[in-house]
């Protein structure tokens, strides 16, 4: 049972998109925590 090229592409693109969004969300959380005095 071989994975199709489309399914493989979906997996790779979805994973890469999530990994690309992660640092942006981390930075947003950092700014939010810092403004709220909750960083440390």
């Amino acid at each position, binding site marked *: 049972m071989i994975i199709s090229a489309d399914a493989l592409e979906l997996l790779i693109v979805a994973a*890469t998109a999530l990994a690309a969004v992660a640092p942006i969300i*981390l930075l947003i959380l*950092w700014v939010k925590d810092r403004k709220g005095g909750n960083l*440390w």
Partner: protein
Amino acid sequence: MNNDAVLDASTGWLILALFSVAWIWLGWWLGRRAKGLEGFMLAGRKVGLALGTATAMATWVTSNTTMAAPQLAFQMGMWGMVGYSLGSIGLMMFAPLAKRIRKLMPHGFTSGEFIRMRYGRTAWRVFLGISLFYAFGWLVSLGMAGGVLINALTGIDYHVGMSVILAVCVAYTLLGGLRAVIGTDFIQALLILSGIVIIAVLAISNVGVDRMHEAVLEERPQLLNLLFPAAIMFLFNNLLFGIGEIFHSNVWWSRAFAFREGVGFKAYMIAGLFWTPVPIVAGFVALTAPALNLNVPAADMVGPMVAAELLGVGGAVLVFIVVFSALASSLDSLLAATSDLVLTDIYKGHLKPHATEEQLARAARWVVLILGIATWALCWPRLTTLAELLYLTGAFVASTIWPVAAGLYWKHVNPNGATLAMLLGTAIGLTAYFVVGFYVAALVSAAVSMSLVLLTTWLAPREFEWAALNQEARQ
């Protein structure tokens, strides 16, 4: 020297020097506000969501994740990288536990303390044996991986690379304690995620998924097979191994104590979500090797080779930065958490029960230093058998899953049953490791441990008052 290195030694030295200075300075800068024992060990118990999420994610991304994920994709195909990404389930499953730990033990310090208060001193000593064996196995494997990877990427001698990465991590952990570890983890998380995304985007745009699929199908079709048996077995064992590692280890408990109230659950959940794609993104680039006509001499070098092919020297530098960040983010966390365990459960628990807070604060720094030197001494001979110790620990850590989880939620767990579960789970798991294979050790250990916890508690339930955890932890 290593003539197959993808970078020259002078570039390697430049990156090593820059990052070493940056981490040590940052460790000092972040740690200058750490006051007292709680400030040093638990960052004052006020870590927010951003830093909490980043430290949980970056600590779980080890050199294994960034280097072994491409290797696994190259050897086991689809399931190699997808199976590896299931390691995130351990982080997500720990999220409710982190909330519960913070609630039951608002003044707690270590996972060992919990076992002592919950099950008594015999269980505590068995647990410490398991936990310290695992911690040393992980520390040595990380230290050795540092030396091996720096040598493979830059040609710098194994002993020099290993010594530098250990010295840097010990230095900034000593200077700033958990604040330094968590602060540097945040930057390391950003570097790791950005680095692997850049390499992945280049791989997709330069090679394309269709071409990659076609070349793999022609040369190594089993890598795209969804019913590849060895890979499916790896998937289940990896899942249980990961849960065992996270549930028992003080690396994750110390963060549960250090996070601000209300942060633990969200931080571990988001960290798990962010960790999930990392092995897939880092791993799939290996599948481009056939399309790029790369001749890969050793499977563990496939990631850097593909990056160097796609990006030239820049790609190799990027891989080096990602690997260095991944190594440092795990090594520093493990050093800090293991020293907490040694300080609280060995030094105070066994040697100096009446030590004052000032004495403990001083001893904490000595423990970090001694632990670093011990790790360095064990890594020096470069015995591969030592690095393989980590595989053995699957049998050990999986035996703790039930005693820890049931102990946190179930009042009636029998303490002797929990002790026996850890002992027999480990023994039978180890037997399975040697008789059957590595891929069943964690599975057998967890099954034996679960059966014993359930059976002994059903036959002889014991009553436990949750409040005892809070009262004793204050002392």
